[in-house]
């Protein structure tokens, strides 16, 4: 019973989905709006349950639950972000969907299932559960993106997201297969323990390939360059509340799992004698995302596309945060940067607010959200204008809003923990933030200082949407001026990111005996393997030769550093 209580947030969201789909049958045509309230109410209950569980340490009695879930501060923090974004998106959808000609209530059911999948993905420590969570979340999103029957853009968004997302899922599945092949385990804790005590098995290529494929698969989900091509089209074509959910919740969930898997597995010396480490990959993606997202954002004229490129750029800052690890409670071990969970929270709130304003614009199937059409919005609808102002300024990172504090905190943490290595990249990030100001302020100039040319976008009257925007704007302000409790929560979440030390007692092995890891590496490698958990950040100025010398002692026997050719990725 207590186990059921412990996983109750997921159960509540799943049952919310079933309930909404049953109520959808009873509700008459054109009277589906209340389903949004039921959905948001379900998410609120799940959110409160998650908060209560957060305060009390959760221990799962049943091994089949304890082996696949880690119900800790990390999980609950990101689950709350997902629930918040999902609830606000549901409220925004209540009046947006009928106006856009989507009369069925399935969107709410799919949204609930998507949230359930996202929470499963966040709290999973077992790679199969993790993959299923990702698939549940994504599959529901593909359908929601394509749900606007009258729009070719929506169909394009659905197909594009589905095909590219399917490829990304295949990459993740290969990650799972490679890690299972290398260690014979599916649990992250078991895999990390095996890799630390036994090295990366007879063929280090398996584990290295798995890590690279993982970064690719999750790079796609967080919309990092060069896996970003779908982002502008999907964000533009999908119904706007769905876009809001995608930009807020999916990014948070993907970053949660990326940080957890990469940092947990990075405890083991996986990349000895190899030129490109996961840290380098993350840094490369981060720099590319910051530059491409911000520079291409300048030339866009559609507000949804501008926000899509902004989302890519924010993925860049966040990847820099994941790359710049920090020490775990004063030990030599490294964990997620304190600032990253807080940044994701502020980003989710602000981006849902910005897309939320767009969701409340456009009558009767209109979907053109170009800058010209929102010109003068601030004068015609001061409330919507104000909500957009708060959200955009927070995304741009201006004080006193949440976005400023998140960005400041992120760069400060990177510099404190990695002073010399991090400095050039923080400077680049700051420069790119200045570039981004151009397109953020351009939106505001159109909204407040320009007169519309031609027909301006009409606002939809929506009580629930107004409430959602109010919550988002208020929260953005609170995160900026009174962030104490949130920063504290972010700190505990980051400290819990790396799963239990690999030296912890073993979780009972799966009942199906696996193809065993080869015994040749069964004896722990003398010296070094247990000693350090390398940070993702490579010390500056250390040449390949020195690194190879330093790492040689950790190599599994039989593999000669000098004979290993360069890796395929450069």
């Amino acid at each position: 019973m207590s186990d059921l209580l412990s996983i109750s947030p997921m159960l509540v969201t799943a049952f919310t989905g079933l309930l909404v789909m049953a109520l959808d049958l009873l509700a008459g045509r054109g009277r589906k709006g209340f389903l949004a309230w039921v959905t948001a109410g379900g998410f609120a209950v799940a959110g409160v349950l998650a908060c209560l569980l957060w305060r009390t340490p959760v221990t799962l009695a049943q091994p089949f639950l304890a082996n696949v879930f880690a119900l800790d501060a990390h999980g609950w923090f990101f689950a709350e972000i997902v629930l918040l974004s999902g609830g606000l998106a549901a409220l925004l959808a209540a009046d947006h969907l009928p106006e856009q000609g989507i009369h069925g209530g399935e969107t709410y059911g799919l949204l609930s299932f998507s949230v359930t999948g996202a929470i499963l993905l966040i709290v999973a420590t077992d790679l199969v559960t993790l993959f299923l969570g990702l698939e549940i979340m994504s599959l529901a999103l593909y359908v929601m993106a394509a749900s606007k029957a009258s729009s070719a853009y929506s169909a394009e968004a659905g197909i594009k997201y589905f095909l590219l997302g399917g490829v990304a899922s295949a990459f993740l599945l290969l990650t799972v297969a490679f890690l299972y092949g290398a260690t014979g385990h599916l649990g992250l804790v078991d895999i990390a323990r095996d890799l630390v005590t036994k090295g990366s098995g007879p063929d280090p290529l398996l584990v290295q390939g798995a890590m690279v494929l993982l970064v690719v698969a999750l790079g796609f989900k967080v919309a990092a360059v060069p896996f970003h091509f779908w982002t502008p089209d999907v964000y533009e074509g999908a119904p706007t509340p769905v876009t809001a959910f995608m930009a807020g919740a999916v990014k948070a969930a993907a970053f949660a799992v990326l940080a957890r898997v990469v940092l947990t597995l990075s405890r083991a010396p996986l990349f000895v004698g190899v030129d490109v480490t996961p840290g380098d990959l993350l840094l490369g993606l981060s720099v590319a995302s910051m530059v491409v997202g911000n520079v291409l954002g300048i030339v866009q004229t559609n507000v949804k596309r501008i926000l899509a490129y902004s989302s890519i750029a924010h993925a860049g800052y966040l990847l820099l945060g994941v790359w710049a690890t920090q020490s775990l409670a004063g030990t030599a071990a490294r964990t997620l940067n304190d600032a990253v969970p807080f940044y994701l929270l502020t980003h989710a709130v602000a981006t849902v607010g910005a897309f939320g304003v767009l969701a409340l614009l456009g009558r009767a199937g209109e979907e053109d959200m170009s800058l010209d059409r929102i010109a003068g919005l601030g004068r015609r609808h001061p409330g919507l204008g104000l909500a957009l102002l708060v959200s955009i300024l927070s995304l741009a990172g201006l004080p006193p809003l949440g976005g400023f504090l998140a960005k400041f905190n992120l760069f400060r943490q990177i510099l404190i923990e990695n002073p010399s290595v991090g400095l050039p990249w923080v400077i680049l990030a700051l420069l790119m933030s200045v570039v981004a100001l151009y397109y953020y302020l351009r939106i505001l100039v159109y909204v407040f200082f320009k007169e519309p040319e031609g027909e301006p976008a009409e606002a939809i009257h929506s009580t629930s949407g107004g409430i959602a925007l109010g919550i988002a704007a208020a929260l953005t302000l609170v995160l900026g001026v009174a962030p104490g409790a949130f920063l504290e929560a972010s700190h505990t979440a980051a400290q819990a990111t790396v799963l239990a030390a690999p030296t912890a007692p073993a979780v009972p092995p799966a009942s199906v005996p696996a193809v065993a890891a080869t015994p040749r590496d069964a004896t722990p490698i003398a010296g070094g393997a247990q000693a350090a958990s390398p940070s993702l950040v490579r010390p500056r100025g250390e040449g390949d030769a020195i690194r190879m010398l330093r790492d040689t002692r950790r190599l599994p026997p039989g593999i000669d550093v000098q004979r290993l050719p360069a890796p395929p990725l450069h």
Partner: protein
Amino acid sequence: MSAELVVFGILAVTAVLGALAVVLPPFGRNPLHAAIALLTTFTCVAGLMVLLSAHLIAVLQVLVYAGAVMVLFTFIIMLLNLRREDLGGFRITAWKVVGVIAVVAVAVKLGVLVAAGLSAYDAASASVVVANDFGGVKSVGMALLTTYLVPFEATSLLLLVAIVGALVVARRGDGGAE
């Protein structure tokens, strides 16, 4: 070299060749030919499962993949009723050239790395341990309903989402009317 290794080699190579034929010309140009190539791969994978004495998984592979999934693929291809001109001509674009070069480069580097790994690999000590009833009805059932109960239940949610999603997308034509 044991007979088992020879059979394994034949099945594995055929499976990979079949998978390549699905996407590469000339078979990949025609959806039905690609489907047949996929069928080859499915059958060979089932054969690999038999080699592992995983009878249940082998039977399921044939029943579900080679049977139901293939029939569905074939139905859909026939319902679409594609003509040769619908498929479009084969054109060599700049992207395709870049893609081929990238694939070849990565394949060569991977090949070198795998060769390096294999030379350090000691087949004698790399014994494969599989339990007696591995892949049988009992062991698969036990695993699904004890160790992997959560993924099992999550799969049912995934299937529900897939069914609802298919209905939503399929209903597009009538403008959402009920």
